């Protein structure tokens, strides 16, 4: 490490970072994310139109109703009365607020709006009873005209004759037929089915001489929050999904920064070759100094990218009260694995850049590299789910995917053996030395070579040659 290497690194860093392309490329993603979180719920103010219409019911069940269970059309009419609908909506909002507890700050306007958005407004729906012998075909005709908002027929429900009482206990109950109009709001069909289901069950229970309320009470269990016991106390369980995001986040952080830096490294080497500034540089510095300087400079670029994302990530975690998920030890290890991953990928990219004259020619050499490095992206789920499976262990020990796999494992749910982390680091560092050694050889031959781009076999020959 001397002043020339540092000068190369300094130029590499400033000429990469101080460009519009870099600032836009690196900052646009977080900016869009922040905008999306902050603004989009406010922007989408046009809520879906309120549903307004009738549901035609043809009741062939011959259930005439009793003290505990009204007829099915009556039950539906009660379920669609404005008071009941309004109460339901309130309950749903409360439930959502409960679910989001701890994830969004109290009184968050955006979250409130999202809930409203999800649930929509109270619809105005009335039930029209058709005679049991009404023609279903004719009733369906009404679905073909009008709009979902104009008070026309929205659905035709035909309750089957054997839906409440059956002729023979050996035969299963029948149910109902449902005909819907086109272009209905998707929040209409599911509640309708639930309400019909409730009405039929109510009738069946009553017809069988049972007490519905008793059955409901017997089969209900209230919501339970799991609590995680940590050395410092207990906290509510998030069901592991936050961990999942964290592992994904760590991996993406590593991936994006390493690849952005690696790409820059490759393109600047190619640029130095194609603009013929390479030999001018080599008159002042050795190929190894040049390569080391460039890798260092781009590593600083990648670190800057990572710092930007890390800060945004920490702010986001704090916003959602999930900061406890971050572990200082894990972040330190992330840095070590970043170093290994960057030098491995970066030197590969530098070698490829040095061997070709144009970015276009690099694609052929780049494809196999990308195919290998996409593996952790594709397999983060199985690795995350079972961090100690043989597959995960192997992935986290084999460079160049080991740093990525290890980072996923570390953020996973199971603790992983310390020796494996150590082994992964040692193997990683050894491969870092091998990569630099091999790349230096390819680099030295490649940088002065113009013309036909070499294939991988040729590159290997260069490694053996010099």
């Amino acid at each position, binding site marked *: 490490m001397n*002043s*020339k290497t540092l*000068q*190369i690194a300094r*130029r590499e860093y400033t*000429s990469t970072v101080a*460009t519009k392309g870099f600032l836009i490329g690196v900052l646009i993603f977080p900016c869009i994310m922040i905008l999306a979180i902050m603004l989009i719920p406010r922007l989408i103010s046009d809520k879906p139109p309120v549903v307004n219409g009738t549901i035609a019911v043809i009741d062939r069940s011959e259930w005439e109703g009793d003290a505990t269970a009204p007829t099915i059309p009556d039950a539906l009419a009660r379920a669609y009365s404005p008071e009941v609908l309004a109460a339901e909506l309130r309950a749903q909002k409360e439930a959502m607020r409960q679910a989001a507890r701890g994830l969004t700050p109290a009184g968050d306007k955006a979250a409130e709006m999202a809930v409203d958005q999800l649930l929509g407004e109270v619809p105005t729906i009335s039930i029209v009873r058709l005679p049991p012998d009404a023609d279903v075909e004719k009733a369906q005709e009404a679905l073909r005209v009008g709009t979902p908002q104009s008070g026309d027929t929205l659905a035709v429900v035909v309750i089957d004759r054997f839906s409440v009482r059956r002729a023979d206990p050996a035969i299963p109950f029948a149910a109902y037929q449902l005909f819907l109009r086109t272009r209905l709001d998707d929040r209409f069909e599911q509640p309708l089915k639930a309400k019909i289901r409730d009405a039929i069950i109510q009738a069946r229970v009553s017809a069988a001489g049972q007490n519905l309320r008793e059955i409901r009470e017997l089969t209900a269990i209230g919501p339970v929050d799991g609590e995680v016991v940590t050395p410092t106390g207990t906290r509510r369980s998030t069901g592991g999904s936050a961990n999942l995001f964290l592992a994904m986040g760590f991996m993406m952080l590593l991936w994006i920064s390493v690849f952005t830096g690696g790409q820059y490294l490759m393109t600047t080497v190619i*640029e*130095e070759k194609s*603009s*013929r*500034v*390479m*030999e*001018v*540089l*080599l*008159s*002042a*510095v*050795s*190929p190894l100094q040049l390569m080391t300087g460039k890798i260092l400079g781009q590593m600083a670029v990648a670190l800057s990218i990572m710092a930007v994302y890390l800060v945004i990530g920490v702010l986001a975690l704090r916003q959602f009260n999930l900061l406890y998920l971050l572990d200082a030890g894990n972040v330190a290890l992330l840095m070590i694995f970043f170093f290994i991953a960057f030098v491995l990928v970066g030197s590969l990219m530098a070698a490829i850049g040095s061997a070709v004259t144009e970015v276009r020619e690099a694609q052929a050499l780049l494809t196999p590299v990308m195919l290998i490095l996409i593996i952790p992206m594709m397999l983060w789920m199985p690795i995350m789910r079972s961090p100690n499976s043989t597959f995960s262990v192997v992935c986290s020990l084999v460079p160049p995917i080991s740093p990525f796999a290890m980072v996923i494992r570390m953020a996973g749910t199971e603790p992983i053996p310390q020796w494996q982390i150590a082994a992964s680091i040692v193997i990683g560092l050894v491969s870092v030395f091998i990569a630099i050694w091999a790349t230096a050889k390819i680099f030295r031959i490649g940088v*002065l*070579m*113009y*013309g*036909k781009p070499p294939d991988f076999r*040729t590159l290997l020959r260069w490694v053996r040659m010099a």
Partner: protein
Amino acid sequence: MNEAIILEDVCKRFGSKVAVDNVTLQVASGGLYGFIGPNGAGKSTTIRMVMSIIFPDSGRLSVLGRASAVESKDRIGYLPEERGVYRKMRVGAFLAHMARLKGVDGGPALNRKVNDWLERVGLGPEYSKKCEELSKGMQQKVQFIACVLHQPDLLILDEPFSGLDPVNTRLMRDLFLEQHRAGVTMIFSTHHMASAEALCDHIIMIHQGVKVLDAEMRDIHASHDPRRIAFRPVDDAHVAAAGRPRGVHRFDQVHQGWEAELAPDADPVETLREISGAIPCTRIELKRPTLEDIFVDIVTGGDFGQSADEVRAALATPDISADNAQESAR
């Protein structure tokens, strides 16, 4: 330190192709050397070995008293044949960067120096322009500044005039000579023999990786007697009428007039008199062989198996980079 560069039995091969074959040479300190030969002769390869950009397969070399240029790079200025600039970098920043890579301390002193040099070559206003905005001639000047900013003791220029117009060629030549007068050892590599002949004190010729000539310019002229007499007759008919004067081997009609090839034992001055006596001329002169003629002589006389026309054709080929030669060797 008397010798700036010493090469002893240096060999370099690319695959099966021998690029430099047992070359031994010395470059004296303060000299102005021409390093000439056709494209692909091994000039750039030799220079790259001197610069420690590539390393010889065998043989020994020393540059400015060190075993390799790795230790003396900061004292050498090198203008490679394949040269360029960082297109997006500003001229001043580029020059400062190059100087710092050559071990010059940064700071205001360096910026002043960069500015002074730019002023001297008439590029003062271009200090904060991007390199890509400069014309090719301007870029060449910037590159030249990049190789002299650190005040080197040895300056190696590989095809420095390629792509320059006559005005800039003259300007660059003046700058080179100024460095030479300041005591800098200079090596000037080119396939264009006439420019080497006009500039250099000492010529090293290389052909197919082998050194074929290594001598002072004045010794070359002294040892290669003129063997041709150029003349322009008043009337072409006089030539035919003159038959074959004594000492003349044969007459050739050339582009502007005629040339007489001397018989092997003829005295040039005597023959000149004979011709001017036999043919009325508007102009007649002893024609000194050019460096190119000498080169063709040497090559056709050696065991390279090339005819004079083949060699002249090789000298006239437009620039193909030495890298292509390496490429085909792979």
